[in-house]
């Protein structure tokens, strides 16, 4: 019976492979990643708003740009799924936090968020290896580099707090330094 089954499957065309060049389980995880990037984008937007209201305009600009970048990440994955025969799902975003007590807390939250995204990407790469989805693994390489950079950026911001303090004039000066924390070694 089992032998018959095997013969039967060998005769069948690999219709999935003809239509979808990535693995179905990987497609699910990529859709989860879309949700995470969308959530990151919304979270950064909330941080930008807080900074705006607290007269930290450079930090606000930084988080506005960060929000846009996360949306780009989301779209990259979205297009990748659809371009490879899968179906990408437009994410729902819920539970965005708008309450922060300081800019330092915001950057700490941002770093935690980037670390958890890195972990999620690494997890995805691990899964790709398990199912031999080399195409997606290759696609995800860019994200690994990107995550490394983003974590470093947030760490650089947190270093500034150690250096310049978290209140008064120090905070104002720190806000002026924010535009320089990005892309220090990227360009």
């Amino acid at each position, binding site marked *: 019976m089992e032998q018959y089954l095997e013969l039967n499957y*060998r*005769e069948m065309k690999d219709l*999935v492979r*003809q239509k979808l060049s990535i693995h*179905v389980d990987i497609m699910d995880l990529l859709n989860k990643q879309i949700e995470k990037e969308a959530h990151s984008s919304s979270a950064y937007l909330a941080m930008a708003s807080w900074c705006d209201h607290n007269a930290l305009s450079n930090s606000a600009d930084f988080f506005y740009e960060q929000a846009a970048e996360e949306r780009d990440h989301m779209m990259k994955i979205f297009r990748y799924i659809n371009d490879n025969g899968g179906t990408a799902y437009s994410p729902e975003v819920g539970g965005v936090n708008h309450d922060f007590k300081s800019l330092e807390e915001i950057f700490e939250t941002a770093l935690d968020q980037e670390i958890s995204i890195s972990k999620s990407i690494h997890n995805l790469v691990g899964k790709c290896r398990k199912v031999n989805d080399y195409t997606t693994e290759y696609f995800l390489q860019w994200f690994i580099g990107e995550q490394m950079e983003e974590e470093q950026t947030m760490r650089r911001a947190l270093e500034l707090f150690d250096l310049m303090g978290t209140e008064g004039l120090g905070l104002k000066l720190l806000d002026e330094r924010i535009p320089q924390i990005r892309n220090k070694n990227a360009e």
Partner: protein
Amino acid sequence: MKVLHQSQFFISYQCDKQRCFFIKFPHKTIQLGFCQLLAFRQQVKEIDLEAHFNGQNTHGMEMLMLCNREHFFVFNTLESIDLKEFLTGTFAMLELNSLLTTSSV
């Protein structure tokens, strides 16, 4: 046309000639392209079985529209449970097929 997977209420078939799939429901059989099969899988994944038992889904019914709303289905609790198993099984068979065809080349 070859059987992919059979559960208590449903049977999936693969048709190599037309490059498509068929699913036999208790009262009718429908034809699906691969994308439509993926969409079906997604809808079934989103069925919250727990809601059938904690009183949230009071009637114990799931309504699904398939193939760009061409078909409309209503499933009861038992069928919904079977449906989840059915799609997992169907995709497991497709994956097995993928493995066999790549390893035989």
